């Protein structure tokens, strides 16, 4: 099975109205090439699940300016002040989640879990309208799984089968999102032959990955640069 694709080819899987997951903690571990490609792809009404929405006019922030995003699900939008502006103008829906609940919900989506109880957010504004339950004397909130049509993830290396390994804190949400979407596109800095990755070090087994794209934009000390 040929999983290697060009960015513009892989991105065709994204359609208007889709829910997308996009890996990364800020720009660290974000699939920069795929996000860039997405700015040239004619879609709208997207729901984007990502920890942040980039920065003002950068990364996912460009998609926001382009009016392609209908709803953002994440834990920390403060790094892009335009998010608040779009929200106040009624141009953007926001679903704010505690970061641990967001990551657990993505895992649940990928693992076929129908919902789970967590203490996180119990008794706070973020639990409003959610089912709560006392378990062993403490209050828990029922949280739902998160799934997506397409996930855009970033890894350090892929083999030709689609096995992935990550690099340092660029790992973050990527291995989780790779489990929770119908179609998973992995942007990687290096593609090696099957068998070159150690079976013990593979973090994302290939059954989760549908397409592999070579990165063209990377995060350097000087910011985002072409490779």
């Amino acid at each position, binding site marked *: 099975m040929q999983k290697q694709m060009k960015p513009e080819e892989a991105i065709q899987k994204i359609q208007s109205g889709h829910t997308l997951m996009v890996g990364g903690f800020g720009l660290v571990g974000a699939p920069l090439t795929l996000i860039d490609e997405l700015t040239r792809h004619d879609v709208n009404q997207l729901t984007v699940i990502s920890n942040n929405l980039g920065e003002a006019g950068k990364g996912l922030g460009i998609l926001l300016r382009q009016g392609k995003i209908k709803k953002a699900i994440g834990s920390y939008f403060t790094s892009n002040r335009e998010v608040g502006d779009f929200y106040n103008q009624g141009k953007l829906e926001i679903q704010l989640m505690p970061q641990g609940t967001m990551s657990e919900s993505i895992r649940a989506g990928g693992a076929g879990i129908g919902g789970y109880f967590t203490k996180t957010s119990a008794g706070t504004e973020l639990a409003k309208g959610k089912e709560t339950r006392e378990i062993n004397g403490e209050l828990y909130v029922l949280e739902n799984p998160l799934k997506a049509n397409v996930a855009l993830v970033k890894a350090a290396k892929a083999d030709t089968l689609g096995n992935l390994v990550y690099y340092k804190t660029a790992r973050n949400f990527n291995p989780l999102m790779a489990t929770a979407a119908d179609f998973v596109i992995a942007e990687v800095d290096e593609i090696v032959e099957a068998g070159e990755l150690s079976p013990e070090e593979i*973090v994302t087994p290939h059954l989760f990955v549908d397409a592999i794209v070579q990165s063209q934009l990377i995060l350097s000390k000087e910011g985002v640069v072409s490779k």
Partner: protein
Amino acid sequence: MTNKDIQELIAKRAAAELKPNSVVNLGIGIPTLIAKYVEPGSVFFHTENGMLGVEELTSEEDLDPSLVNAGKLPISEGIGASYFNSAESFAMIRGGHVNVAILGALQVDQEGYIANWAIPGKNIMGVGGAMDLLSGAGKVIVTTNHTSKNSESKIVAKCSYPITSLRKVDVIITELAVFKIEDGKLVLKELMPGVSLDEVKEKTEASFEISEEIIVLR
């Protein structure tokens, strides 16, 4: 004192709370200043974006843009460090495997509730890992300026901002004093160097008890 001096003072005192070999998560702001007051390798720093074994970046040359802490600041990798995904990282936090979390605050109240993620009237746009850390950390230490920029006490009778958790904090460290929450009550334990009890009383909205063995730091 400049605000920078105040923050360093608080950070240094907070470092003294850390027992050897404990696993410690440092929040954004003052907490990020704490690591340098801790002997390298004596405690293990955890960052919720997916790493155990965070160390201070000591040289710009070693800067790796893909190696950052929860504040997206560059860090370095200690001996015996490990990486994991966000769900595993928060499983450690929520599951009680992180001994200490040190966090900033907008307000802390006399019952020990903390508000540190949202300001009423402003859009609520960011929560990050704050609620998870409150839910799961073994001990929660708050490091904060005693008063806001408008000179209002941040140690209040009751949080007027949205609280972060039903879980109460354990220790509050400011540039004026150290408080602990004992049996649901705020207790003044220490006065910072050169600070009088009167000054703390004046600048603290919360009611508090005074420890019989109050320590006056020099």
